[in-house]
């Protein structure tokens, strides 16, 4: 069945402010963030994803990716493409690096799942 999203925005924000960015990413990705239905909550989820992805520096990306499982990587890829789709100011360059690193871990399969899955970011 469909998992409803259970994003704990407060928890994630507090992790981000104490610089525990990778923890924030892991928590976000495992809370079924693609399960959000209404447009306002979807935008909020994308905004949160964007903040987390921008907070993690290039040098930390490989470490973060190695801690994620296959399902989380698929969700991450969905939000990367969501970021391409509706770009935030100055985000594209950083997202491109994210894309390259996630792609080398997952191959083209995760990109296919961005397109084929019913639930989008």
């Amino acid at each position: 069945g469909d998992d409803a999203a259970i994003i704990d925005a407060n928890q994630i924000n507090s992790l981000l402010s104490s610089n525990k960015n990778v923890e924030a990413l892991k928590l976000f990705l495992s809370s079924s963030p693609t399960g959000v239905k209404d447009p306002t909550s979807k935008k909020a989820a994308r905004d949160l994803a964007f903040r987390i992805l921008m907070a993690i520096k290039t040098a930390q990306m490989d470490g973060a990716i190695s801690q994620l499982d296959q399902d989380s990587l698929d969700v991450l890829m969905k939000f990367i493409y969501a970021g391409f789709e509706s770009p935030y100011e100055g985000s594209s360059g950083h997202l491109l690096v994210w894309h390259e690193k996630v792609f080398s871990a997952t191959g083209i399969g995760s990109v296919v799942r961005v397109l084929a899955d019913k639930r989008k970011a």
Partner: protein
Amino acid sequence: MSASIQKVGPAIPIQCHAWSSDRQTIAVSHNDKLVELYKQQPGGSWNQTDILDQHDLRVNDIDWAPNTNRIVTCSADRNAYVWVQGADGKWKHTLVLLRINRAATCVRWSPQENKFAVGSGARIISICYLDEEKDWWVAKHIRKPLRSTITTVDWHPNNILLAAGCTDFKVRVFSTYIKEIEPKPSATEWGAKMPFANLMAEFSNSPTGGGWIHAVAFNEEGTRLAWVGHDSSIAVADAPSGMVMMKLKTNLLPFLSLLWIGPNRLLAAGHDCVPVLFHVDSAGKVSQGPKLEEGGNVVEATAAASAKNMFKNKDRLGQELVDSRLGTTHQNQINSMRILEGNKVEARRVSTTAGDGALVIWNLASGALAGKLAALKI
């Protein structure tokens, strides 16, 4: 050479293919309304022996029954024909009224060849059997709970159960028991009660949707059901262990066809244009093995022979090197795969047809491939 290309007609995409039981003749459809039969000649080439021309629109699937030697074809024209070869060698057709109002997408003879199943875009599976008295094929419908186009069907060895993959992202197992022509079936791992059209099991490809189902396949004993979906995944459901489903998301492009080539081995092929091996362990877990050939990357063209050619390419194509040839034998997606020699427990040769119009025969018992298969022990 473990992969050999055969030329069966022009280089137009082949939609589907099926072999005669002696494997000397192949039936192919080149993305049009015709079914062409090619027979292998002593020199190795293929000669066209017959054209089966009755359908009005594209032929979507062909199946050839090995024992009764009947061919069944189904088409976008919403019809199916059963073809029988007369004493003079000519093929005579019989129209089967499927009673559907959308294209027929896939067709398979049952193991005992007294029924065949046709999937369609009408959200209906037509189970057809021969009414001996009137000498015509009768179609019975399975409708519930199909919500979308059926893309693929496969029969359980007991001649009753049928697996169907659908574009509603689900795989289902139905009973096709027809009391007029067969005895009541005994219980299997899929359940005990099997009235016609009973849904025995239903599997969702993924909680997040998971892509259309492209191919389903029962193993030899009918205890396991494997399928591939458009989310680049392959999954196996194991009935004896309580319908447990194990899914593997791959790093490759989606697969379009699937075969069991051993009790624990699957071969899947699709948009990567090369068959890939998979292993299923005793717990039902699927793991990816090697591709049947390497060289999946685009082959780098050598630098243009002359400066003139280099500028010509730059002008015509916008790039200096012409690099549109794939490194694999097939140049386009593989959409149909059959066991040529052997069976689901031990397949020795497998045939593939693809969008490049080529038929390729893979010798799984040859040195290079046998080594890969042997190495595939997790």
